[in-house]
Structures are given as C-alpha cells and as structure tokens.
C-alpha cells in the first residue's frame, strides 16, 4: 500500500515537472519574435588564448571584434537578405587536443557555420572535425599543407588556406633581399619541431629564387644561442630571419650584439605583438632594426588594397586604441587574418547565392578572385596543393626604429602554380 502510494506520488510529480518544462519551452518558442534584422552567421575562431602562444592569440581579439562591429553596419547581401557575422572565440591552447575540442564546441555547441582566423599549429585535428562536419575552415598553411603533407583536397574539401605561410616566407625573403641587395646570406632559424616537408618546400623555393641561405635548428626552449650565432657567422650570414616563435629571434638579436655582430639584421616571420616587448628583452640598441612582418595596408606601396578596406582598418585601429586609452597602434597582424578570411567567406557566399550550402560556397572559392584587407588575389595552388584554395598576400617587412615599427620593404606574392 505504502509502495503503491510512493509510486503514485512519484509519477504525479514527474508529470507536473515535465508539463512545466514543456510549457516553458513552448512559451519560449512562442515568445521568440519574428526576425526582422540581419541574419546572423556564426563564425568560430579557435585560437591560442592560453599557454606560451597566447600573446599572439590574444593580440588580435579586440581588433577582430571591432572589425566585425564595423563590417556588420553594412553586412553582406544575398538577394533581399542582409547578413551579419557573429564571432565566437574558443581557446584551442595551440595543442592538437585543444584544437579538436575547440572545433567541436564551436561547431556542435555554438552552431558555427565556419571557422576562421585559425593560425595555430593544430591543423590536422581542427580540420578533421571541421571537414567531417562540412564546415569551412579558413586557416594558414603549415608543414601539413604541402605536397606530401596531411592536407588532401579529397578528404579535406572544406579547407581554405587564406594565409600561405610557405609562400609568405619566400615573399618575406624577397622583400629582405630588396631592402638589403648587398646581403651575404640569410640565416634561417627555427626549432627542430618545425623541421619537415614544409621547410624542405621553402628551401626549394629559396633555391629556385636564387636566395643564399643557411639553416640552423635548435631544440625547443633553447635560450642560449651562442653556438648557433657562431655557426651563422662561420657561414657568412648577415641577416637572421626566424620562422618560428618570437623569443628565439629576440635572444639572437640580443646575443649577437654581445658577440660583436652588431651589423647583422635579425627578425622573424610574424608581425610584432608590441615593439615594447622587443625593447625590453633585447635591449634598446639590440632591438633597433629588428625585422617583422607588416600588415599595415595603408602603408603598402606595391600592393593595391581597396580604399574601403583601408579606411575600415584604420577605423578599427582607432576604435581599439581609443578603448586602450589612446595608445598608438602597435599590432597590425590582425589585418591579414580574420578580416581577410571573413571577406573571402562573405564574397564567396554572395557569389554562391547561399549561406547554407558549403559545397556551393567552396565551389565559388576555388579559383575565385577575392578582394581583401591585403589586396585582391585569385585563389591558386591547383598543382601545388591539389586544389586552388590558396589565397595570396604581400610579403611586407617593417623594422623597429626607436620604439615603433617602420615600413622597410615589400614583395608581392607570385601566384602559386
């Protein structure tokens, strides 16, 4: 009797709870107003917000959000509908596991239609998730995205290489040679973690371009570069251009001064997060002339950028600088990443006439010409990558003078076969 009573009470309570829940859902659904404003396209940004790579991941966030706010004032149109972007950022910890987790969260929990702005070194795991879900991934090339690498256009048909790292490095070296035509040899520096077919591919490109270079590899976490600087000196190098992190070239810049090689030029293939870091770590004198990539499109001399995007980028810089108390701009790397990716994505959706069909959008991307924050480029790389999904970019170099970055030289990227 008691047991029957207990079961009855339990069933009644469960029914009440279930009904309440169903009612609440229904009310919520009913309460949703009809959408009259722009349609929102969610874009996921898996990026390093923790760990040693976090400074680069964090550097662009304010700029990206400001860019999207600006972009959304007009948005993009398909038919009579206007579309806006909403950016969702998740920390991928710059690890394979973190990348996969971030991609899954962005796609399956947050409902992102595309992943963009991706630059961390976990392409295989991120692309495995995004391609399986038929979600476009706008990313950089790395060791994996060369002939013989992990990238396969058949199994990864939704990947777009909007930042071609290898071709960028070659363009950077050509810009350096343009700036220093009497150079003796470029010393290439990278951790041995980066050794692989990617660097082999770059070496072949440098050989084909007739650039003299000497490669040194160091174990990760090396802080004493005396042996490597000695080897560069013995090889006759006078420009050291690193392909990896920022700590190692900063230390090379500092230690080469201490070893008496004051006339060398030292830099890295990446934009400056903040010149103040280099001044603090290298020392003022050693930091002078430090080289880095420069995406300041209003200062490009050889690459033509749509004035509309130049104005937008300048406005974003102002918005972020005002937010930070009026500090003058120091980070320009953001210009060549997410904004460029979103412009390619939005223009491709406009061409394809759809936001929901990833195959149609990719068809519009392959071999298409797009206008971005770093110029107008045609997707290429059909022979090199197996699919024309590689976007171009200028190789533009700046150097630290005083406490600021100053334009040095530029070399437009040649189309990739």
């Amino acid at each position: 009797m008691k047991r029957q009573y207990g079961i009855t009470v339990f069933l009644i309570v469960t029914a009440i709870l279930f009904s309440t829940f169903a009612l609440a859902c229904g009310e919520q659904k009913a309460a949703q107003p009809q959408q009259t404003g722009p349609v929102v396209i969610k874009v996921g940004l898996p990026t390093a917000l923790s760990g040693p790579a976090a400074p680069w991941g964090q550097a662009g966030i304010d700029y990206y959000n400001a860019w999207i706010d600006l972009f959304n004032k007009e948005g993009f149109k398909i038919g009579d509908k206007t579309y806006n972007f909403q950016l969702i950022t998740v920390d991928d910890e710059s690890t394979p596991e973190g990348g996969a987790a971030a991609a899954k969260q962005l796609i399956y929990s947050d409902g992102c239609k595309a992943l963009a702005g991706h630059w961390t070194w976990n392409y295989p795991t991120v692309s495995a998730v995004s391609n399986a879900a038929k979600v476009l991934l706008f990313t950089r090339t790395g060791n994996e995205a060369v002939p013989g690498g992990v990238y396969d256009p058949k199994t990864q048909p939704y990947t777009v290489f909007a930042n071609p790292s290898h071709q960028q490095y070659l363009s950077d070296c050509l810009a350096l040679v343009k700036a220093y035509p009497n150079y003796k040899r470029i010393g290439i520096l990278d951790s041995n973690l980066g050794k692989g077919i990617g660097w082999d591919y770059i070496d072949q490109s440098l050989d084909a371009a007739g650039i003299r270079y000497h490669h040194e590899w160091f174990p990760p976490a090396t802080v004493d570069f005396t042996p490597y600087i000695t080897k560069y000196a013995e090889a006759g190098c006078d420009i050291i251009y690193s392909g990896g992190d920022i700590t190692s070239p900063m230390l090379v810049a500092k230690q080469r001064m201490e070893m008496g090689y004051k006339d060398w030029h030292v830099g890295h293939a990446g934009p400056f997060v903040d010149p103040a870091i280099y001044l603090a770590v290298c020392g003022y004198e050693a930091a002078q002339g430090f080289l880095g990539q420069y995406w300041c499109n209003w200062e490009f001399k050889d690459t033509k950028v749509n004035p509309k995007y130049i104005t937008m980028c300048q406005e974003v810089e102002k918005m972020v600088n005002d937010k930070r108390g009026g500090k003058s701009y120091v980070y320009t790397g953001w210009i060549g990443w997410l904004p460029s990716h979103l412009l390619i994505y939005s223009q491709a959706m406009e061409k394809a006439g759809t936001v929901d069909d990833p195959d149609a959008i990719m068809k519009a991307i392959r071999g298409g010409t797009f206008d971005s924050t770093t110029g107008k480029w045609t997707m290429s790389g059909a022979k090199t990558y197996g699919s024309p999904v590689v976007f171009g970019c200028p190789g533009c170099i700046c150097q630290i003078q005083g406490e600021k970055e100053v334009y040095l030289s530029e070399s437009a990227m040649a189309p990739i076969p």
Partner: protein
Amino acid sequence: MPPPGIWIDGLVQSSIYITMAFGMVLVFSILGILNWTHGQYYMLGAIAVYYGVTAMGIPFPFSMILSGVIIAGLGVVVKKALIDRVSGDLYVGALTLALIFFFEGAASMLFGLQDKGLTQVLPGVLEVGAISISYQKLAVVIFTLVVMIAMYLVLNRTKIGLAIRAASQEPNAASLYGIRVDRVSLVVMGIGCALAAWAGCIMAPVYPVNPFIGRIPMIFSLLAIVIGGLGSLTGAIVGGIILGFLNSVIAYYISYYSEVVLFVLVVLILLVRPQGLFGASLK
C-alpha cells in the same frame, strides 16, 4: 676545436647549473627528497627581481637579495605546511610535481604570459681581443664563484654548517647531540630555495622572464646532480661544469641533435658509473 666563444658560453651555462644543482643537492642531502619545485623557485626569483627593479625601483643587487629571502621564506612555508604533512617519497614527489603546475599557473595569472626583460641591468660588453662577453654573463660567473665560496665557508666554518653536515650524515646521532634536525631541515630548505631564486635573479637580465623558465634549469640541475652523484656537493659542482660545457660544445657541432646527444652522453656516464662521479658505490 670550438672557438673561444663556445668555451666561454659553456662556462656561463655551467655556472647556472652549478648554482641550481647545489641548492638541490643540499635539500636532498638533508630531506632525502628531490624537490621538483626547485625550478619554480628559480622562476619566482626571476619574477620577484623583475618587479623589484621595474615596479619598485629597488636597485638590482638589493632586489636580488630581497628576492632570495622572500623565496627562501616561501620554500620554508611549503616545507612546513605541505611537505612535512605528507609521508612517503612517492607522495612527496607527487606533491612537489603538483606544485610545479600551481606555481606556473599562479605566475601566469599574475605576471602574464609575455616575455619580459631586464636588459637595463648591467648593459654593455667586455671585449678582450677577439672575445666578447656581456657584463651580464660575466656577472653570472662571478656570482657563482661568490656563492660557492660563501657556501664553503658556511658549511665548513660555521656552527650552522656543522649542524647541516651532521644532520645530513647521521640525523639520529645529530639529534642526540642536541641538534634540532627539524629546524636544520627548514634552514636547508630555505637556503636551497634561495640559491634557486638567486640563480633566477642573476639570469633575469640575460634571458627573458616568463612563468615557464623554470623547467629547463630544473631538468639540467637534476641531471647535474645525477652525473655528479646524488647527495654530493662536490658532485653537483662537477656535474654542473660537465653539463654546461657539453651543452655548449654539442650544440655547436650538432645543433639539430644536440639534446639527443647530450642525454645519450648522460646515460652513458650513468651506465659506466651508476652512482655518479662522486656518489658512493651502489651495493
């Protein structure tokens, strides 16, 4: 034959490994534990001196002394509040391993992840013929010599040094002679952590400061004491010298494989002499 710059570089590398290893051996000889957090005291010392110089304007030498004292105090607190409450080498090891991540995480939150530098301390280069050495690196070598002389005097010419040596050799007998072994162990922990912190302080103007700089010095100081012989102070010095010079010379000849070769050499040394160069023979 490597050029002179490589040998000087080896001397600088050796200096820092010696200072770190010495502190580690001191702690091991009294407490019988390998303090895995030793590298984090190095990192905390570097961060403390960075803030002392840049935020508080305290001259570098005084900041360094202060940092050592503060980190020594921290080490004592960790010993008293945590290590002493855990019994068993395995559990103490696990505790100090966990503390590595705690200190790194805390430093990341408070200090940030970006590299910071103290290049304004001891700028300039000493040039002697074809050889150049920065004043910062010269200070590292001089500092290590001073520390070794000071430690020799403390351990051999003072009462506390006598107590430390007695407690490390025969703790039970030492306590019978009225030596407070528990207090001595706290003093030793403080000295060991201070040595690690001062190593971090003296290196702060040489290399960038960030929350992760303690890991490699920890590994190399552990290798130095293993090569030299666990529990041997002389061994820590010799192990540090061997490791520092090997690291520099091997990197010069085989940059890409330098770590692999270095660790293979360490393994070979241990295969020939498992107790280390100055350790007692294993029975």
